[in-house]
């Protein structure tokens, strides 16, 4: 059944774009972040209190470094998805909206990359 006019479909406006996968991935990353958050908070607290050697050893454990990489992937994805919704809700102008969402996605992708490179550097050198 086609409820929309041919012109509306050609314009590709409204629903049936990629809304479902956006919504779904927001939930999948949210669930992943529940246990990972505790590990990362513990890591940050350790960073403030122990010496450099102990942090290097923390990263040497595969379970820890894998958790760190998993957190980086999930948290930056989750943030970018969430900020996209906020931008879509408050920015009415179509052009500004698209530019803001793109900038936001690029910025968070770069942050995720920067964090990953830092982790690999710590693992290889630390």
């Amino acid at each position: 059944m086609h409820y929309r006019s041919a012109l509306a479909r050609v314009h590709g406006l409204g629903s049936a774009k990629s809304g479902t996968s956006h919504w779904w991935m927001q939930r999948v990353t949210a669930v992943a972040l529940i246990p990972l958050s505790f590990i990362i908070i513990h890591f940050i607290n350790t960073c403030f209190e122990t010496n450099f050697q102990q942090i290097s050893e923390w990263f040497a454990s595969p379970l820890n470094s894998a958790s760190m990489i998993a957190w980086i992937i999930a948290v930056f994805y989750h943030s970018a998805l969430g900020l996209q919704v906020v931008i879509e809700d408050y920015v009415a102008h179509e052009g500004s909206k698209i530019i803001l969402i793109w900038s936001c996605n690029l910025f968070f992708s770069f942050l995720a990359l920067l964090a990953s490179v830092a982790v690999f550097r710590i693992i290889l050198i630390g």
Partner: protein
Amino acid sequence: MAHKNDRPTSPHLQIYKLPPTGIISISHRITGVLLSFGLIFFVGLLLSVAGGPDSFETMQNLMRISLLQLIYWGFIYALFFHLCHGIRHLIWDAGQSFDRETMNRFVMVELAASILLTLVVFVFLS
């Protein structure tokens, strides 16, 4: 066309008194945006470890400033609040507990749980 002005307007945010569920809902969004910005500091922390013992020590000295410690624990509380209300969203997504009493009760549960989790982490994981 004159009668158009007599139509009821939707309650404006400055006038409309938000119910507890509404305050919690907007707080979820605000904490989400704040936590996204907090990720920049998280990347900074990883970079300080990747930079070696010297930059790591600089970061540790910086984090001894009480104001920064206070901001850090503010972020941790924001994270737990966001996590608790996030679980609430997952329960809603499962299609459950939309009645008013349950929603209002959950407001108190979320607030209590987020404070409790922050305290537990402060005592046991730091």
